[in-house]
């Protein structure tokens, strides 16, 4: 797989109550990824970027919210979310990784 492409697949980690909870419970990490990313791509990208062993990846498409401003309606962009399950004993420390 193209290294350059892998560098572009992952957009940002998702930091929220749910993401911290699943990190503690299932060794899972949530990411916002580009819309046309595939599971194998995400798996390879996470392994490359964070130097960890990935067990499995599940993805879902998040529909953008419909927002209205006065009379006009607008739509936020759809995006893809990926839950990455890490292999036993692996960990990503996002608090420090964000700085790197």
């Amino acid at each position, binding site marked *: 797989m193209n290294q350059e492409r892998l560098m572009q697949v992952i957009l940002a980690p*998702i*930091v*929220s*109550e749910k*993401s*911290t909870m699943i990190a503690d419970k299932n060794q899972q990490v949530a990411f916002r990824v580009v819309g046309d990313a595939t599971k194998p791509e995400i798996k390879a990208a996470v392994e490359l970027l964070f130097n960890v062993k990935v067990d499995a990846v599940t993805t879902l498409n998040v529909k953008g919210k419909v927002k209205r401003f006065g009379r006009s309606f607008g739509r936020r962009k759809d995006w893809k979310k990926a839950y990455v399950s890490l292999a036993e004993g692996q960990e990503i420390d996002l*608090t420090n990784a964000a700085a790197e």
Partner: protein
Amino acid sequence: MQVQLETLSTLERRISITLPMAEIDAQVGERLKRVARNAKIQGFRPGKAPMKIVEMNYGAQVREEVLGEQVQQAFYKAVGEEKLRVAGYPRFEPVNNEGDKETFKFAATFEVYPEVKVGDLTGKDIEKPVAEVTEAEVDKTVDILRKQRTRYSRVEREAASGDRVIIDFKGTIDGVPFEGGSAENFPFVLGQGQMLADFETGVTGMKEGETKSVEVSFPEDYHGKEVAGKKAVFEITVKNVAEAQLPEVDADFAKMLGIADGDVEKMRAEIRKNVERESKRRLSARVKENVMQALLDVTEIELPKSLVQLEVGRLIEQARRDLESRGMKVQDMPFPPELFQQQAERRVALGLILSELVEANQLEAKPEQVKAMIEEFADSYEQPEEVVKWYYASPDRLEGPTSMVLEDNVVEFVLSKANVVEKPLAFDELMGNNA
């Protein structure tokens, strides 16, 4: 806590303090816990964010706060232990000690109050102006009061100097009217230089209802740029000529001045009392000035720079406010600190000398003195009891009189020590020549 004191110059000191890091860390942790209880962080309900995230968001800020506080605390504790009197604000700087993770080290540079040695006042001459209030002064004051209450009554004669006239005028230059060159029902008093001399001589001698053309040449330095140096013709119509009438010194006049039963003698006594009070005030102000100067002359003192700087700042602020309250735009007005330097130095020096004198000689303001001072203030008001009550209503209102009593005490003390030279002073000079 380790403390190390260095003396940099006569007044400058540097203190180096070492704090254990563990203590700071513990404080930071505790404070973070408190912050976490209602921290708002994106992606979490308020207060639900885990400690790790809170630390990432607030850690640096909290640490800074704790450090600042610890530094302050440690500094004042150290200063207290070393028995130093810090003047102005200290300057803090961290000391680099790489490789030592256990301690935090910083240094504070500051100035201490100088030892004030008030010089010997015995044999020092202090001029004490004296002025006497005589009947003549009272007369003068009465005259001023009369002039302030001048009334005008209409007369049917030619206007003369001192009369008030009401006129319409229309001015033209080369037959063309110019701005500000005409007015209707314009009152002015002749012979006081309110108008241009040509204009006034033109009006003098006119009667009510008369119309006349007057040629006026504006001077070269006239404030109106367009007309300066030009010749104008004014068509003047006099509508009213009125003679000035000074009120007689009689019962009515006394009543006007607030003496209920119209007793002229009483009025004079009242005026005399006021004049005497004013003259006493000015005399004591002068004596005070002289005493302060004498104190400055005999005392040698090194001033802490930081105090002078603070004072300069205060003076600038005061000047700025002063100008602002007079309606000037101060936003972009420069206030060069050098202008205030000397004044600030003087004030700081006097402040130090005074506090030293007060402490050394027990010249504190006593409550009964303050009371007397306030009663004296109140005396010139119509309801003295109210004024006294007002002063005692809050402690910061008492501050003014208290510091005045203090100054008076110092003045008295100095006068008792020094050689007082009495010097008669003309009353007019004392009052600033305008009496």
